Each structure stands twice: as C-alpha cells, then as structure tokens.
C-alpha cells in the first residue's frame, strides 16, 4: 500500500461523509459544509491522481475548483442570511412557501 492508495481511500471516505451530511442534516449551513467536504474530497483525489501520472492538469483544475468553491459558499451563505430573515430559521423544513 502506497501513499497514493491511502490518499484515494481518504478521498473516498471524505466523499461518503460529505454525501451523508448533505443527505441527513437539516440545517442549511450543515448542508453547505457538506458540499465543501465533497469538493475537498474531489480535490484530494484529483491532485493525487495527477501527481501519480506526472501531469499538471489536475492541479490547475483544483485551483479553479477552489475558486468556484469560494464563490459558491459566498452566494450560498448570503442566500442563507436571506432565508433566516424571511423565515426566522435556517432549517430546510421551515422554507415551505412553494409547498402546495
């Protein structure tokens, strides 16, 4: 077992945990943190594969993913502030305006 396999296994575990957080938690802030964890797992996997194949494209891609993650979390958190202002809570079950 080498470093690469260990890092890929860690990326798989982090991805699973992020997916479970997105699926099971009810706070929108926890869901956003789960998305960050998912992106981090994908970054880890990309960097490890790209490093082991002697390429640069994975690292460049990770650079762009981190930038997009920063933009995404800024927009997501401001949506969350709006949600709190309008519904008084950031639970997913409190925003039920569209419910028929």
């Amino acid at each position, binding site marked *: 077992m080498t470093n690469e396999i260990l890092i890929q296994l860690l990326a798989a575990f982090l991805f699973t945990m992020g997916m479970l957080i997105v699926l099971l938690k009810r706070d929108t802030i926890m869901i956003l943190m789960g998305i960050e964890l998912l992106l981090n797992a994908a970054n880890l996997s990309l960097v490890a594969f790209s*490093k082991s194949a002697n390429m640069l494209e994975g690292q460049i891609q990770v650079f762009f993913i981190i930038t997009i993650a920063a933009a995404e979390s800024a927009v997501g958190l401001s949506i969350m502030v709006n949600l709190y202002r309008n519904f008084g809570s950031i639970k997913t079950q409190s925003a039920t305006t569209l419910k028929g």
Partner: protein
Amino acid sequence: MSIVIIILCAISAVLAATMLFTKSPITSALCLLGVLIMTAGIYGLIGEHLIATIQLVVYAGAIMVLFVFSIMLLNLNTSDDDLKKKPAIFAIGLTLGLGVFSFLFYAIQEHYSNHQDNKVMGQFTPELIASLGGNSKVLAHALFSQFYVSFEVISLALLVALVAAVVLAKRKVN
C-alpha cells in the same frame, strides 16, 4: 508510505466522522477546518506546494471565516437532534453511505491492481519539475500561458459572485 501521511489521514477521517455525528454547527465548522488543514498538510507532503498554500489561504482561511461568521450572525446554537428522531432515515442513509464507500473502494482497488500497466504518463516528472524551478513556478507558468483564458473567466466569475452575494444579502424580499 510515510507515517506522517497516515497520521494526517487518520485525524482527517475522524474529524469528518465527527462532523456527521455532532449536533452543534460550530463543532462541525471547526471539524471541517481541521479536515481542510490536514488536507493542506497532505498536499504539502506529496510535493504540491502551491495547492497546499491555496488550500490554507482560501479554504481554511477565507471560506471557513465566512462559515464561522455566519454561524455567529445567525446565532445558531445546538440544533435539536434530528438524527435520533428519525432512526429509520439515519439507518437508510448509513447503508447508502456504506454502499457508496464500498463502490469507491472497489473502483480504487480495481484501478490500482489491474489498470496500472496501461496508464498514460504525463511529461512532468518530479525531476523535470525540480529542474524547472519547483512546483509553484511550473504551475504558475501553466496557469498564465496555457490556461490564461480560464484564469480570466474564473476571475470574472468571482466578481459576479461577489456582486451577487452583496445584492442577495442586502435585498428585502416580501
């Protein structure tokens, strides 16, 4: 394989599991911060210095400050335990997670045992990167020559996201 990477991976896995099972958002945010710092350490140890620095500055610095700040702003304390309230959903979720993890494990194991000999290798061996002046220099050169259009588009996307965040946070919706 180095012992430091094993320790970093173990701490990071434990922190990720704590993120799932904890109740308070601030504990979860601090665990996420730990995971991001450990990941930056792993990047540094396998020789990706630029990515490690960006991970520390942007992820563990800027994004986590945003998260902690909005937890403070919204005054979120311990949420009532929705995992214990619905054990059936929790059990289904854990089963699904186990399924996804075993699939990923199978894919990794398959890749590293059967598909190693027909791998396409790039030209940037560690020796070449060292002779070209190090990881940061090589990555920066690629970023500003081969990928400069993407770089400009990404900076535009960041600007749009900044304006969107300000507009969304200011607007009063009826």
